[in-house]
């Protein structure tokens, strides 16, 4: 897949009409993701209820790849359990860095549209940032804000 087709498939939809865009006023968990080297910044707020992600929202300033990734991610994890989301986070990161064999069973669904990102190494971190931030949010103390850049997993990708 080349960059243009990646852009066309993903952008056309999610960049212009991002899903779950905004902030939850009553969030139980939240995190701020920040990629200082390219200026991307992403806020994620979510409500974890009985291990389920009841509600989730994101906003921020970022490139189209990051925004589309965030938008599709929120749609994909909404209503899922904490454990399910963590599995997706791991699978997405593996896919983006070329470590996931998509022929094996996985839970990424339409998110496989991002598999081409592995050929654009400098953009991998854009696609991954929302997932790191979600991971940080899921593991945050209620109301605490975590800088995803201090997450060692993210640190190694910047």
């Amino acid at each position, binding site marked *: 897949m080349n*960059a243009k087709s990646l852009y*066309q498939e993903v*952008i056309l939809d999610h960049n212009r009409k991002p899903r779950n865009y905004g902030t939850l006023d009553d969030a139980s968990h939240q995190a701020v993701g920040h990629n200082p*080297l390219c*200026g991307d910044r992403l806020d994620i707020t979510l409500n974890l209820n009985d291990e389920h992600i009841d509600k989730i929202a994101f906003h921020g300033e970022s490139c*189209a*790849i990051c925004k589309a990734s965030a938008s599709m991610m929120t749609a994909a994890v909404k209503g899922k359990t904490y454990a399910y989301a963590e599995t997706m986070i791991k699978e997405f990161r593996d896919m983006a860095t070329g470590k996931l064999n998509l022929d094996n069973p996985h839970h990424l669904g339409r998110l496989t549209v991002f598999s081409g990102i592995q050929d654009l190494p400098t*953009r991998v971190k*854009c696609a991954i940032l929302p997932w790191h931030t979600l991971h940080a949010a899921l593991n945050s103390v209620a109301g605490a804000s975590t800088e995803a850049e201090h997450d060692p997993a993210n640190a190694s990708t910047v």
Partner: protein
Amino acid sequence: MKIIDTKFESQTVTNNMESTRLDFPILKLKVNNKPLVYLDSAASSQMPQVVIDRLSYYHTAQHANINRGVHYLSETATAAYNAARCKLQQFVNAKEDREIIFTSGTTDAINLVMHGYGRKFIKAGDEIILSTLEHHSNIVPWQMLAEETGAKIRVIPINDAGELLIDEYEKLFNKRTKFVSLIHVSNSLGSINPIKSVIAFAHTHGVPVLIDGAQAAPHMSIDVQDLDCDFYAFSAHKLCGPTGVGVLYGKEELLESMQPFKGGGDMIATVSFEKTTYNTIPHKFEAGTPPIAAAIGFGTAIDYLSTLGLDEIHAYETDLLNYATEQIKQIPGVHIIGTAADKTAILSFVIDGIHPHDIGTLLNQDGIAIRTGHHCTQPVMQRFQIPATSRASFAFYNNKTEVDALVAGIHAVKQVFS
């Protein structure tokens, strides 16, 4: 045959400078099946065949460690290394060859001055003047110094065109002002600063000035004696030379007065555990085995550029810049950042609603290499309240056809996002 034909053709079609692109093998690459359009020379320039060959020849027939070796290879390598120093001396018109210190690059050179001059002479409460335009390599070392010593950093502001506010600069001076460190040409905006008068003003206050010439030396002729700067720093890899080497020019008296930066071999006269005495300049500042091959390659790159002529390069690039500026500013939704009256061929821009990184990735799809991001100048980005720009930077080996490709590429990017 083909190459000669093309050369002939390009010479007749445009001018002599353009035919230099044939000297650069990398410019023959295809990227994504499109001819490479390399518009990232401000980050690092490409290398002509003559420099590539010089490096190979050095490693094939001349290499040994330099200084103190009495055998043929060591004498040959030492002579070639010293000759490179003399070429650099002439290139910037330094009075003495020992005023040329080989460093590993501009960053290393500025850090050398910070450690060698700053940590010796700058004290708590003293003030160091920088500008909003500085590259991080001319900010962070001084911040480290300020943190260590309690000195203060004062910043020359810029206007909306990206030009220094000289009145504000002059107002910054007071008795505590001890150093000025200033970028010659902005790497993110292209602004050429009026450093000669800036230096003269600082000298009326007895304050020495370091000029970060990383973006100037490749594009205009530099005369350190005429400028009367106290230090001047630049990197080979932006001058068609190798990575891993750069130059710090410093006035002899100042270099003599400074403490060494790194300790090691060759920078000493005598060593015992009781007492060590340092060698003379430039050796005092060249501890350990230097980047011998890279310095020699740098010398060859200087020969190459000097043959083209820096004034001719400047004129050709200015023409290219004007052409590109005219084209780009006509594209709806595109805004040029950095519109100083006096500029080198650097074109930073933003496009409404499209993030620079997406622009960069999509242009690359068409073989066009630009740089996107903050260009190691976050204060400039903060000044213009943008996270990043897209930057096309031109060298003498670029041509108008490539500008046209960039313009077409930008239209295509807008199409994707329309």
